[in-house]
């Protein structure tokens, strides 16, 4: 192939690759911002952060609600296989849409918080499922060692590092 033609084709490919790289860079920054906003909501115990992959024990631990309370709400027996199903699978199991199930759980958690005085909410305290607030047995059963300490340091750096605001994602959109 002619050397000049090779030069032109490579130049065009380089321009395309540069465009793709810039696009990926913007996407990465936006993903980082989304993460920071979502993590903020999660830290404050916002029930809008409940996701279809979560299991009942995970929700109970994360939102400080007794497992038995959620079990009662969802009519779940003590069967481990059912108990540890993600919400999406659980919804299929009980023949309900997953969004409806999540909605019910969100209301139940909010009701529980409203009616129970002195319930510890996330606002103003450390986040629970993250390393900051693994209190009690978890902190030492799972988290002892160098690796979780490194994760802790990295987590702090990631959450508190400033990222230039390319886009502002409204809170309503985040919740949606």
């Amino acid at each position, binding site marked *: 192939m002619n*050397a*000049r033609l*090779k*030069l032109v084709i*490579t*130049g065009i*490919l*380089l321009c395309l*690759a*540069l465009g*793709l*790289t810039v696009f*990926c*860079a913007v*996407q*990465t920054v936006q*993903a*980082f911002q*989304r*993460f920071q906003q*979502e*993590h903020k909501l*999660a830290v404050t115990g916002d029930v809008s*952060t409940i*996701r*279809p*992959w*979560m*299991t009942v*024990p*995970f929700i109970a*631990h*994360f939102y400080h609600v007794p497992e038995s309370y959620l079990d009662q709400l969802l009519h779940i027996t003590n069967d481990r*296989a059912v108990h*540890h*199903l*993600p919400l*999406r*699978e659980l919804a299929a199991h009980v023949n309900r849409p997953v969004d409806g199930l999540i909605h019910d759980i969100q209301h139940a958690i909010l009701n529980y918080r409203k009616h129970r005085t002195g319930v510890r909410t996330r606002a103003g305290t450390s*986040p*629970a*499922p*993250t*390393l900051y607030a*693994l209190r009690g*047995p*978890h902190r030492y*059963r*799972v*988290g002892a*060692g160098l*690796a*979780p300490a*490194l*994760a*802790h340091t*990295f*987590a702090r750096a*990631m959450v508190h590092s400033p990222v230039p605001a390319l886009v502002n994602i409204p809170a309503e959109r985040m919740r949606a």
Partner: protein
Amino acid sequence: MSVFLTSLLNIMQNYGYPALWVSIFIAAVGLPLPIALVLLAAGAFAALGDFNLVLLTLISISASVAGDSLGYAIGRLWGSKGADWLDHSKLGKRFLKPDSVARSRLYFKKRGGWAIFFSRFLVAALGGVVNLLAGTELYPYRYFLLFDIAGEVLGALIPLLLGFAFGASWEAVGDILGTFSLLVLGLLIVIYLFIRLLRYARGVQKARATAAYKASILEAPLQSPEAPPSQV
């Protein structure tokens, strides 16, 4: 989140470590499973106490290394034979120059280790292809294993610790990892193309200079009024 990922998480919750080992092994051989996301989720569940983080790390590394080794073996057994056949066939000779094949083998022997290492955690999508390529290019297995284990340690620890640290936000962390991986891939392509462009530009410049020199030599006798004494 895809239904497929939820199903994988469901299997992981129900069957525990063996299911996780099999999933990671299959992904390491080359099947496109979202294993980084599964590891992030496993880390999140480990923070809850459902899994043990150390055991998860060991299982992840062992399954990945076993799967990568199988990919390497497939490449070595069938890939190298295929490459040899292509090397000697008419079709291969038509499209591939023998010296370019030898050059690529030499290049992989020199730099292949880094490709193996970085494709374990930085550009994980290329992992399966790199395993096959390493086997096909007859890259020494002991070096392959060394770079593979080193890369897989990072490849297991990064998602597990991030999942462990961020719990419920692991999906957002997965997004960051995915886009960052694409960004690195884009940067590598840009660097490669930039180097090629410089080489081609130099080649064009050299060709121009040679052409100008030739032209000046051809024009030189016409311009000189006297012939050199030796020719008289």
